[in-house]
């Protein structure tokens, strides 16, 4: 996903401007100048904080940033905030310990009857899953196509797992230790992407939004 280079948001009376930490500084300044002049009145009497992420700014660069806002009326405070590298890394290390990153298997094909995929992580299938085929994942299952087979997400017992498909017309869905099947008889399937997850101890299928 394309990340916004510059983000504006209001927080606790401050206008927080977040600058992308990887983009070249001169590009960033150019962008910023353009945005600032376009929205001059927006900055009146604003207390501005500039978040630069892990980027290390030289004295000159800081000057340039401040100058960008200097021409604006009624500007009160400018603060430049840099993420602390050290603590950041530690945070990340802790995160890894608590939540080991699950890997994802990408499958660029259609699964036919009798074929099955099992993976110790998430599974993304770019294709259909036909009736009689089986997808078993420790994590989530995403099908970029029509899902007509049997899926088991969160196979180690995690009810947090989800199953998403462009068209969800399953024979049977299993999430963690929950199981559900398609109703008997003719079923009308909605013509939009759906997501299955566990809510209140049962598997619930909802429209996929966002």
């Amino acid at each position, binding site marked *: 996903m394309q990340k916004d280079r510059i983000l504006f948001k209001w927080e606790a009376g401050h206008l927080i401007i977040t600058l992308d930490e990887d983009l070249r500084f001169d590009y960033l300044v150019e962008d910023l100048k353009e945005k600032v002049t376009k929205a001059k009145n927006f900055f009146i009497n604003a207390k501005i904080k500039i978040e630069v992420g892990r980027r290390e700014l030289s004295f000159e660069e800081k000057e340039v940033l401040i100058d960008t806002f200097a021409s604006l009326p009624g500007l009160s405070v400018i603060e430049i905030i840099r993420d602390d590298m050290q603590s950041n890394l530690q945070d990340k290390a802790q995160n890894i310990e608590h939540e080991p990153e699950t890997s994802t298997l990408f499958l660029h094909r*259609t699964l*036919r*009857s*009798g*074929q099955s995929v099992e993976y110790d992580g998430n599974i993304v299938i770019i294709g*259909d899953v*036909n*009736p*009689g085929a089986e997808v078993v994942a420790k994590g989530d299952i995403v099908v970029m196509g029509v899902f007509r087979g049997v899926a088991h997400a969160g196979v180690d017992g995690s009810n947090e797992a989800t199953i998403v498909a462009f068209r969800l017309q399953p024979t049977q869905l299993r999430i963690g230790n929950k199981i559900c099947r398609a109703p008997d008889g003719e079923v009308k399937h909605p013509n939009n992407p759906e997501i299955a997850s566990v809510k209140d101890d049962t598997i619930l299928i909802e429209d996929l939004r966002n």
Partner: protein
Amino acid sequence: MAGKVLVITSGKGGVGKTTTTANLGTGLAKLGNKVALIDADIGLRNLDVVMGLENRIVYDIVDVVEGNCRLEQALIKDKRYNSLCLLPAAQTRDKTAVNPDEMAELCSELKEEFDYVIVDSPAGIEQGFKNAIAGADRAIIVTTPEVSAVRDADRIIGMLEAEGIKEPEVIINRIRMDMVKKGNMMDIDDMIEILAIKLLGVVPDDEKIVVSTNTGEPIVLNNNAKSGQAFDNIVRRIIGEEVPLMSLDEGLVNKFKRMIGLA
């Protein structure tokens, strides 16, 4: 110039593999091609019966593989077309009497001699099926508009892909447009959507086929039968002609005839 080996298969039994083999073989021969049919359904041989050639069998495929006779000795010439031959299955043995390597060898030997070698596969996915597809260049899957047949066809397509037989084609057999229209039978689009392979043709359900298989006269030779025309069209598509799908809607006259019991 080497010919092509086609395997006719389905997974499910009773969908019309043998009838299709007999009709495609006869149709191809009618157009002047040299054709050999192989019945790979060892122990349950039928193709000879459908072709009306049962009483001419002396040697069979197992005799060839075991070296009891030469390949030419086991090939039975068709009654109608000199360019059409049948290699019959053994009836007293089972599928393990032949292995895939022997089958592939047999196919490559036959395709030196013939334009088309058509292998009639047994139902199932076990050794008989594996033998049947061993030498195939191209696969034709026969299915009927039933959920179970389509399911099995899907399974077979997956297995063919795994064996490296790319782009199989499907024939939908025994369709009844009147039932499809009422929503009581799967329609062609539904089936093709699931199977996601090329449609080679559609054969309507036809009582005349029952008669034709019982008398050993392939329906493709009967120009008055819609099913015969359908097989003829499929044959033309196999040799690379562009033939549009024929309309299977019942004409008004026929409908009337059927209502008053004339057809």
